[in-house]
């Protein structure tokens, strides 16, 4: 059954790997924020083929499993194109684009919620297209989406164990290695679960509070 001594023995290794998990989450999410905004804007393009291509890309990425996308980026791309990535890079790109398609919808809902009068006021004051976006529209569109973005951040964090499948030594992979070395899986896997809980639960409480504060305004 549960062996406390063994649990404390393996804890430092797993804690060390938590840094990789967090780094992959943050890098992936930063990329997802950028990709999501880019997709949301491209989708609004007045040039129909571009807008349709963007919608196609979003639907394609959302309709295929992240794991397959990760395999594709990590294993298939180097063989077919010669472009190769480290496991961390491939993981960041996979998470970033996959979640970017989801975040593009979040951006879109934020942008769509801006009343037409704001665009018209910007036009009447002769703001350029770029300045209308950066000074008027996005500063209003993004803050209300922060809680939803936060939920995606937590969801993405919990999906990082998938990166173990492309050899990234994050928490789960570390636990697996410990398990196969010592023939004990209960403690390492339990610890991994607990560490995920310890990070994602407070984060979700924080997001709920943000949501509440936004509603108050």
């Amino acid at each position, binding site marked *: 059954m549960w062996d406390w001594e063994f649990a404390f023995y393996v804890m430092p290794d797993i804690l060390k790997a938590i840094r990789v998990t967090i780094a992959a989450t943050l890098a992936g999410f930063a990329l997802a924020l950028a990709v999501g905004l880019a997709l949301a804007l491209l989708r609004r393009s007045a040039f129909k083929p571009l807008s349709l291509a963007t919608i196609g890309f979003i639907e394609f990425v959302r309709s295929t499993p992240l794991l397959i996308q990760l395999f594709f980026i990590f294993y298939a791309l180097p063989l077919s194109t010669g472009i190769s990535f480290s496991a961390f890079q491939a993981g960041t790109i996979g998470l970033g684009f996959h979640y970017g398609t989801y975040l593009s919808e979040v951006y879109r809902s934020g942008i769509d919620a801006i009343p037409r009068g*704001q665009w*018209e*006021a910007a*036009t009447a*004051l002769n703001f*350029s297209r770029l300045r209308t976006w950066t000074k*008027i529209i996005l*500063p*209003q569109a993004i803050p209300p989406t922060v809680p939803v973005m936060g939920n995606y951040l937590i969801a993405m964090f919990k999906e990082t164990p998938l990166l173990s499948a492309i050899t990234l030594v994050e928490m789960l992979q570390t636990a697996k290695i410990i398990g196969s070395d010592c023939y004990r899986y209960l403690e390492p896997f339990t610890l991994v679960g607990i560490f995920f809980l310890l990070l994602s639960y407070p984060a979700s409480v924080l997001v709920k509070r943000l949501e509440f504060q936004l509603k108050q305004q």
Partner: protein
Amino acid sequence: MGMPSKVEIETETDSMTDEPIVRYRKVAKNFGELQVLKKVDLDIAPGEKIAVIGPSGSGKTTLARLLMTLERPSSGTIEIDGELLWHEKVNGKLVPAGEKHLQHHRGKIGMVFQQFNLFPHMTVLRNVAEAPIQVLGLSQKEAQKRAKQMLAKVGLADKLDAFPSQLSGGQQQRVAIARALVMRPKVMLFDEVTSALDPELVGEVLTVIKEIAAEGEMTMLLVTHEMDFAREVADRIIFIDDGKIVEQGTPKALFKHPRNPRTRSFLSRFRNNNWKDS
């Protein structure tokens, strides 16, 4: 006034020439099947104050929105300051104007909206100073100085740091007026600017507009339901119905002796309540 000298035309000094500052020529606007403006011709002289009245849905707001470049005319041309607004010449041919052309001419026009459309994420001061910084390229200091002057003019010098949500509708609309004026347009459009206001707040907004009108130089197009206000401020009243200018004239002529039956029937609705003495 006489013929304008050549120099005046070249330097585009507007106020002393006889040339209209705005010229609508056969301007039509369709929304799908619906034709909201039907080949409208209208000249506006520099400094002239025109009030546009008419039933809702008559196309009077569209008249202003076309000039502000918020809607593209379906046919016809609009000139501002002697130059085509919605068209430009490319290799001698008239083509629909690109964004650059529009941006160049749009700066001559300012607009105040029915729903104020202030930027809710900015303070009052920033609402007014932002466009001078971002569009005119003024320094922050210079823009704020100008903005403060304008806000003082509309009686809101003490609200610089407030957010729009903290202001009454009348105050918000006065900020919107300052925000448009600070860009120093040649033509100001007021689109039913008191329609969204509680009755007790209408007066403060109209007072500000009257003050601006009294200064004289600003060309103004006022789309309004306030007949007393129109009579008081405007040099000319235009009655629009069903997408056409049905009748126009001085306030005195139009309100006292409307010739067209439709004008008469429209005005009679107002005469009963808030339009009493001549």
